[in-house]
Structures are given as structure tokens and as C-alpha cells.
């Protein structure tokens, strides 16, 4: 008896990535730099979020040639992004054997109402969320891993903090709520009662929770881990800094030892005078340029 694509194996790969850093890369060389620095996985894409912002236009699934060349270059798992609701892109990525699919607000949504029904896929999905309701809706659709959305490509951690705190606060509230309140809470959250009751009982999501969107320094990574993230996605923070190798390694070290300020300080010191990516004030971005509000 052999069963592939079960919840256990789909959620299981995310469990193996815990405590690690997943890095956005746009070339096989960058993927090797990420692996050498200690990344647990890479996200293969044509442009990092900061460049997607600058380029404008429609951002789609990356070229398969590029994704394949990155899969061939490294031994760690490779993830790739599809547009929200674009199940055909997801079928394509599953067929080439990608390890994880990110149904991502960083790409231009293909469907402004519905996300992909993810349960029938053998390949696991990770999805973004700004709050507990959004996280549980994605899990109900079959997501095997959740990441806070943050504001991708902004170099600004404020949105990731807001989303991670929102998820954590809502879980803590549920875990002390009397049973008779759960149905009303499920309605408020817009999430299935079974999942709400499970979170109330366990005090955590039924899948692994990473942080994404705005991490650009080792201290940012340590902050998010202490706020309850089980691992970190870094998009533009590494390859938009002016020393990618140093930043990659320092963010890995700070994620591993997030609770030890001496080691986080050492990671910061290792950067010398290199500078982090330039950041954006998210409050000054027009609504049309916000990525986190895509999908709900």
C-alpha cells in the first residue's frame, strides 16, 4: 500500500522546512548562493517582487525553462508561484514535478473571486494570509502551508508584523473561547467550524506558518520568529541588498538562533557596511499598488 499526495505528506514537507529560510531566486546561480548560505528551499521566479513592482504590467507564472534550470541546479526543494485562481498554471507546475506551489498575490490574480481548489493536487500549496479567517479559508481549500502576506517587495516589515500578530492574537482568543461561541466565531472569521474548533483545541494552525513580505535584515527575521513564525520567506531582501552572500547567510543564522541576541548581533555585524535593500513607506503606496489586498 502506497499513498501519495495525502495531507500528511503535503503538510509534512512544510514541517521539514521549519526553522529555515526560503529564498526567492531568479537564476540557477542565485539558487546555488541560497543553498550555500543554508536556505532550506528556493522560490524560482523570473523577477523578485521589488522588480515586479517596478516593471508593472501583468506578472504570470515564470518560464518553465527557468524553473527547470533551477530545479536541476540545487538539491533543496524548489517552489514556484502561480496566479491566484489559475489552476491551469498549477497543473503545469505539478506536471514538471515542482515541490511546492505558491498561489501568490505577488503575481497578478487570474480570478478576482475564487482561489484554486487545492485538495485534488498531489503537489502541496502554500498561500498567503493577513488574518486567521483568510488562513483557514486557504487551508479549507487545501493549502498545506500558510505564510503571512506582509507587503512583498517593500523592504518594510510593518505589514508582516501586522499580519503575524493578527493571526497569533486570533488564535489566542479562540483558545480561551467557550465552546458555545465557536459557531459565531466561525461566522465572523468566515471559516469552517471544524477548522475553527481544531484551532481552538490545539492553539495553533493545523499547518506550518511562515512569515513573508518585507523581511530584509537578520533582525527582521529574528523579530518574526519571536512573533510566532515557524520560518521565513525572503524575497527581495537578499538579492536587492548590495551583498547577497552576506545577507543570505546572516538571515539564515539569525533565523536559526532567533532567541539568542548575541548570535543575531553577530549576524548583523557580519554584514559590515553592506546595506539592506531600500524600503518603501507602505502608507504612501496607492491602493492599486498594494499586493497584500489581492485575494481574500
Amino acid at each position, binding site marked *: *500500500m*502506497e*499513498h*501519495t*499526495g*495525502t495531507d*500528511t*505528506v503535503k503538510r*509534512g*514537507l512544510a*514541517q*521539514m*522546512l*521549519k*526553522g*529555515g529560510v526560503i529564498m526567492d531566486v531568479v537564476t540557477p546561480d542565485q539558487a546555488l548562493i541560497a*543553498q*550555500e548560505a*543554508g*536556505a*532550506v*528551499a528556493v522560490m524560482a521566479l523570473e523577477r523578485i517582487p521589488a522588480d515586479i513592482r517596478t516593471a508593472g504590467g501583468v506578472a504570470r507564472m515564470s518560464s518553465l525553462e527557468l524553473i527547470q534550470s533551477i530545479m536541476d541546479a540545487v*538539491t*533543496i*526543494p524548489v517552489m514556484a508561484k502561480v496566479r491566484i485562481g489559475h489552476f491551469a498554471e498549477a497543473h503545469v507546475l*505539478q506536471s514538471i*514535478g*515542482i*515541490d*511546492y506551489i505558491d498561489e501568490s498575490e505577488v503575481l497578478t490574480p487570474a480570478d478576482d473571486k475564487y482561489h484554486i481548489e487545492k485538495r485534488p493536487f*498531489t*503537489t*502541496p500549496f502554500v498561500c498567503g494570509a493577513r488574518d486567521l479567517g483568510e488562513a483557514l479559508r486557504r487551508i479549507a481549500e487545501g493549502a498545506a502551508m500558510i505564510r503571512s502576506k506582509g507587503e512583498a517587495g517593500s523592504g518594510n516589515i510593518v505589514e508582516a508584523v501586522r499580519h503575524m500578530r493578527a493571526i497569533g492574537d486570533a488564535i489566542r482568543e479562540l483558545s480561551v473561547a467557550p465552546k458555545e461561541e465557536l459557531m459565531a466565531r466561525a461566522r465572523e472569521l468566515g471559516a469552517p467550524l471544524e477548522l475553527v474548533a481544531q484551532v481552538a483545541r490545539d492553539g495553533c494552525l493545523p499547518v506550518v506558518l511562515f512569515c513573508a513580505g518585507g523581511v530584509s535584515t537578520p533582525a527582521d527575521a529574528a523579530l518574526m520568529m519571536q512573533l510566532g513564525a515557524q520560518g521565513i520567506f525572503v524575497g527581495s531582501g537578499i538579492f536587492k541588498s548590495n551583498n547577497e552572500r552576506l545577507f543570505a547567510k546572516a538571515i*539564515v*543564522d539569525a533565523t*536559526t*538562533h532567533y532567541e539568542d541576541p548575541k548570535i543575531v548581533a553577530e549576524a548583523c555585524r557580519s554584514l559590515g557596511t553592506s546595506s539592506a535593500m531600500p524600503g518603501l513607506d507602505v502608507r504612501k503606496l496607492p491602493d492599486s499598488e498594494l499586493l497584500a489586498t489581492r485575494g481574500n
Partner: protein
Amino acid sequence: MADRVPAIGVLALQGDVEEHLVALRRAGAQAHAVKQRDQLDELDGLVIPGGESTTVMKLLQRFGLASPIVERVRAGLPLWGTCMGMIVASHDVADLKQPTLDVLDVTVRRNAFGRQNESAEVDLNVPAIGAKPFAAVFIRAPWVERVGPGVELLASREGHGVMVRQGNVLATSFHPELGGDTRIHEYFLSIVREALRIGKRSTAA
């Protein structure tokens, strides 16, 4: 005199640490996460969990944990590696120049059963823990390609070794920490208790 409760450390640089801590406690051990060198001293056994082997091997070297672990294991400390832990414990990795701790005389092949789409739950015969098959979870799993002298093969899948033991070192290419069956955790604790008894006898002598 009753045996004391063994203290097991789970290497916590990266991977599914919490899952092992929970399973070890259910199997009757004290268990805690280990990240620093000085935490190795108090242990009766060490688990290297599932995770990414390239990442963890780099972190072991970067934070000065590789040599102390090798020293302790060579001196008899029971070690169990699951999946990533099997790769890290092995002598070498087929077709890759990947550094390892080299405390288990086997050659492993990484992602040997395939990438994530081939990850699977499999009913596995493990005679060492009883007749009932073990529901084994394989995730981008390695297999054992070569076993050295003195290495016992405890389970195979499709003709490839997936559970081996060499004295105080146990390795599984699957994840007994996922799912509720704690028989392999109990089996590891029996290795730990055996080592504690031998240690006590040699101290008494």
C-alpha cells in the same frame, strides 16, 4: 533499582523538532531541544530530526556542533537520524560531494524515491518492532545504497534499505515522528536504556 527516565535531545537547528519532542515524551522519555554545544553534555541520547541536510550540515559546522557530536557518538552516545538525520549521520552521499558526520557506515542516495510528488505513506514491515506493519511517511526520502560491515538492515522498501542500525546509531529514511505510532521511538529508547546499563556496569567495574 528502577531505570531512570532517559534524557533525549533533539537537534534543533532546523526541521521537525517539536514532532520528535512530543513522540519521545509519549514514548516515556524526557525530551528537549538542543541548539548549543554545552547542551550535549547532559544527554543520554540524541535525535537528528527531519529537515534539509545541506542546511543542517552547514549549521552544524558553522556553530561548532559537528565535532562534539561525532566525539560523543563515537564514545557510545545513542543517535537516531530520521531522513535528513540519516543523511547527516551517513558515511557519504551517492553522487554528491556533501559533507556528513560519518558515524554510520552507509552510503545514502538523496531524494532517491523522487521529489515531493512521489512522497508517500507506505505500510512497512519492521520485524524489530513487531509483526504489525508500520505506517511510514516518506518525504523526498533517501535510501541506503551501501551498508558497511556491522550495519544491520532493519527494513526495506522496494528492495532498498530504509532503516538501519550500527550499534548505538539508528537511522530511518522515513518519519516515525509524523503520525501517532511511537514504536520506533520506543525501540530507540531501548537502545538508550541498553547504553545506560552498559555505562553503569563499566562505571561500577
